[in-house]
């Protein structure tokens, strides 16, 4: 692999890991909450009277179930990508053999 390929992989990993260390934890404040949830809270401060008029039909009953479904989503996607590249590389090798 090219050197820049390794460098880019390292950059992706660093971009995900470095924030964990440079962001100083604030006491009594939950760190690394979701931006979506923060926006939801901001709506509450901008327009305190806003009434949510529709609620989700199904909500994961716990954080564990939620992470299960998120992992499932990632796993399905990764599986398809792996299948694609597996086939592509197999096709390439078969082409070489002929």
């Amino acid at each position, binding site marked *: 692999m*090219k050197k820049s*390929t390794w460098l*880019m*992989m390292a*950059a*992706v990993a660093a*971009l*995900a890991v*470095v*924030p*964990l260390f*440079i*962001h100083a934890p*604030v006491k009594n404040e939950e*760190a*690394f*909450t*979701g*931006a*979506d949830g*923060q*926006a*939801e809270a*901001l*709506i509450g401060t*901008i*327009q305190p009277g*806003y009434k*949510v*008029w*529709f*609620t*989700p*039909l*199904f*909500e*994961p009953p716990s954080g564990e179930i*939620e992470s299960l*479904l*998120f*992992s499932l*989503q*990632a796993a*399905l*996607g*990764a*599986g*398809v*990508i792996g*299948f*694609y*590249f597996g*086939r*592509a*590389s197999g*096709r*390439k090798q078969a082409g070489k053999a002929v």
Partner: protein
Amino acid sequence: MHIMEGFLPIAHAAGWWAVSLPFLVGGVRSLKRIVKEKPSARLLLGAAGAFVFVLSALKLPSVTGSCSHPTGTGLGAILFGPSVMSVLGAIVLLFQALLLAHGGLTTLGANTFSMAIAGPWISYAIWRGARGARLPRESAVFLAAALGDLATYTVTSLQLAFAFPDPAGGFMGSLMKFMAIFSVTQIPLALAEGFLTVLIMRALAVYAPGDLLTLRRTKEGKVAP
């Protein structure tokens, strides 16, 4: 970028649905055309959709101390054009709305517009523009994916500021607040998505050069940028 279920006033929720629907119709047409004209690209189309599935499931920490996720829509927009991404992105958003209570059915129109329409179209425009300006291929891929990702979150901020103007600062005041949450958090994530998209394009060039060539060949037999 997920606006939660019920968190847009009815008129806004309906309005964004109305804006997104024509793009979805166009996306279905584009999808059918690709499958018919380039059947060998079907699997790659699935992989491009899968890339959105993976990236939008990964909530990553950011320098702001909050978490958000990349979108993965730039890759498909570069490979297949932006139209088809409206469908692939909407499928992912529907999955999350129904099973994860992440986003929602009432806000699906607005969320589809930011992630599956605005992001891919901006990615595509940057990709074409950068190639037109003779920027190297990989720089163009990086810029298209990273800026498209950032654009999605900026559009979400615009949508929310439009629906919830600040009592003191009005639309702009509200926009700054929402962008502080979404766009700033997104900067490192957008860079990561840019790099990942370049990595996937490299892998495609190594393992599936044939697929890439099929896509770039237009009807007239010319090879697109």
